[in-house]
């Protein structure tokens, strides 16, 4: 049977500019696999799209409509992920929220069906702080770090981690929420201008990113001290600010650019045949590449499942096993055409959150391109693991879930 990978995309609405390249990456990858390999283990990939417009209620409808025989759902929105966690668990469908969603879902003991590898928001917060530490010879006592965040579940994710890190490293945390959609941030940036924080971290999304980058440039905040999470580091976010955005940094767990083997394959098997998703103009952009990565992991999980269960016709339950046993080491990544594209990671029964590695990339306004400026770094496990255990245990207690993997 064909393998169904339903896609909940948002190519419309306030966040469409981000949803489009990301979805394009997915689609192109699936098409490439179908064209190059004839599918996964001989089974074609079906990838029906369902447009959510980033709306929870529509997401539910899309899920219900496509959940029959679906291998995995990539909800593409933190709100929808929260929605699907209990539902998919009850229905026995895998949910994969790559680097977003509920951070504590990394605890596979509690969240059997949910995966968020390779890295979580809390890792992200910790890695950003680590980067700052590195710039200050590991001493940031007394410094101020501001967090400009989307005033929603997504944006609030790193707060607790940063508070803990603040205690540990002695920096002051300044919280600056920005309401949806984030067009008007004057007060935020006046506050920043007055308080002169040493660093700014940003958990932004959509138009909020563009305005923030532009405002930071406009108040002449040193851009190299302004670091966004991986959802605040696409070309869309910096281009409108023009020159001003030069030097802006963001985290990432996949490389920018279009010189990888996978891109060549996509070019050959998809774009050159005129079958590019969308208008093909997002090829090689940050979010497009992330789409490739996300799709690759999902496909790889299917392969693993096929191996484990010795059949190409896997069921959703088998697929979950595959996802739990995904092991993407450097060698495997190279085989898949992702050499140096992303850090290796492996899932396990306990750990659904991957390696927790991310790197920092920086924007060059002259060449209009992102470049990686650090290696992939790990987070402060001591703090993060504790937080994850706390939060997931609370959830387990509320929902009366018994721990697995023991």
């Amino acid at each position, binding site marked *: 049977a064909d393998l169904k990978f339903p896609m909940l995309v948002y190519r*419309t609405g*306030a966040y469409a*500019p981000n949803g*489009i390249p990301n979805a394009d990456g997915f689609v192109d990858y699936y098409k490439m696999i179908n064209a190059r390999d004839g599918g996964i283990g001989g089974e074609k990939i079906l990838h029906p799209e369902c447009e959510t417009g980033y709306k929870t209620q529509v997401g539910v409808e899309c899920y219900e409509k496509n959940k029959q025989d679906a291998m995995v759902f990539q909800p593409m929105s933190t709100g929808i992920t929260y929605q699907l966690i209990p539902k998919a668990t009850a229905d026995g469908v895998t949910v994969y929220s790559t680097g977003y969603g509920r951070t504590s879902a990394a605890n596979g003991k509690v969240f059997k069906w949910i995966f968020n590898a390779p890295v979580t928001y809390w890792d992200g917060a910790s890695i950003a702080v680590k980067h700052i530490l590195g710039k200050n010879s590991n001493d940031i006592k007394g410094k101020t770090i501001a967090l400009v965040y989307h005033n929603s579940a997504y944006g609030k994710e790193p707060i607790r981690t940063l508070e803990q890190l603040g205690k540990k490293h002695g920096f002051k945390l300044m919280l600056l929420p920005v309401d949806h959609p984030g067009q*008007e941030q004057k007060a935020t940036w006046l506050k920043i201008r007055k308080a002169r924080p040493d660093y700014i971290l940003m958990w932004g999304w959509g138009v909020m990113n563009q305005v923030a980058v532009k405002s930071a440039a406009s108040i*002449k905040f040193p851009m190299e001290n302004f670091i966004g999470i991986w959802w605040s580091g696409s070309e869309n976010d910096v281009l409108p600010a023009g020159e001003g955005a030069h030097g802006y940094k963001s985290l990432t767990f996949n490389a920018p650019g279009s010189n990888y083997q996978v891109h060549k394959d996509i070019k050959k098997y998809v774009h050159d045949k*005129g079958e590019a998703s969308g208008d093909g103009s997002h090829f090689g952009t940050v979010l497009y590449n992330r789409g490739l990565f996300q799709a690759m992991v999902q496909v790889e999980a299917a392969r693993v499942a096929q191996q484990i269960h010795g059949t190409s016709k896997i069921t959703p339950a088998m697929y979950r096993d595959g996802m739990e046993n995904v092991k993407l080491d450097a060698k495997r990544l190279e085989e898949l055409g992702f050499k140096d594209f992303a850090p290796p990671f492996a899932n396990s029964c306990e750990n659904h959150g991957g390696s927790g590695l991310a790197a920092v990339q920086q924007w060059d306004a002259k060449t209009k391109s992102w470049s990686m400026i650090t290696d992939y770094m790990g987070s402060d496990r001591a703090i993060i693991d504790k937080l994850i255990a706390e939060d997931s245990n609370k959830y387990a207690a509320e929902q009366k879930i018994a721990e697995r993997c023991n």
Partner: protein
Amino acid sequence: MSVELLNFIETVLNGLMSGVMYSLVALGFVLIFKASGVFNFAQGVFALFAALTLVGYQTGQVPFAHVINELFGTNYHNWYASMPNFLAIILTMITMIALAWIIERLVLKHLVNQDPIILFMATIGLAFALEGVGDLMWGSDVKVLDVGIPSGGSVWLEEATIGLAAEGSDYYGMYIDVLNVWATVIAVILVITLALFSQYTKTGRALRAVADDHQAALSVGISLRTIWILVWAISGFIAMVAGIMWGTESGVQFSLSLIALKALPVLILGGFTSIPGAIIGGLLIGVGEKLAEIYIGGYFETGALENWFAYVMALVFLLFRPQGLFGDKIIERV
């Protein structure tokens, strides 16, 4: 001067500037309300549509490209690489006039003499339709809009004010975005022109008459059609100005249409029917919400109270003047 005082002045100034940006949107609302009693919720989408169109013309995008490509398997994207700004603006203006004409033909004409709430809902429908058409025509990517209006912090002001602070204190000068200064200049010109127009010309009088009673206006020979096309076109123009200003700041994308929500408290505070009200309301709201965010936001941990604060502030004003500061009196008689 103490740094606190300078900071306070800076906050007020920036508040005023944000207020002007809201006013630009509110102005379009007011004009249409004044001239037809229609509460035009589509004003925000108008701004989006105008900005999209402007960028589309500038960069030579082929309208409906992705639909055409999908249907016919073609691969059209751009006609030409760029077009001079002024030409693009003129073409956009013409498009907005055409849009006004279409709206009159397809929508307003059929809704003469209906309840205001029905007209209001129709404009929400219009907002959806226009949003969809905008998406279909120009795609929903973020687009960079640059018509050459300078933006960024004003260096001049910063340098001029840096010395004002008391000796030895930590002060970096005052901040103001040049783009907003331009917006202010344009808004003031618009407000004065429109206020004079509506108060002292025959057409202006007719506008107000139409808002009061469609049927009676018809009966004295005012052509609703002409009036409506006229005001919707003017509003289209204002929307374009708003679209340029907001779009320069944030790139052109769907979120632009949500600025309508920022304009609403301005509207009720200034009064739906008053053109000067739109600007004064905007200034009050702008200053009020910035002061609130910066000076009392701290009491709520992290603030972000701007959104509701603007509405609550407007509400408080309304309790004293139910028709807004400058709105037409609500006539209650039996």
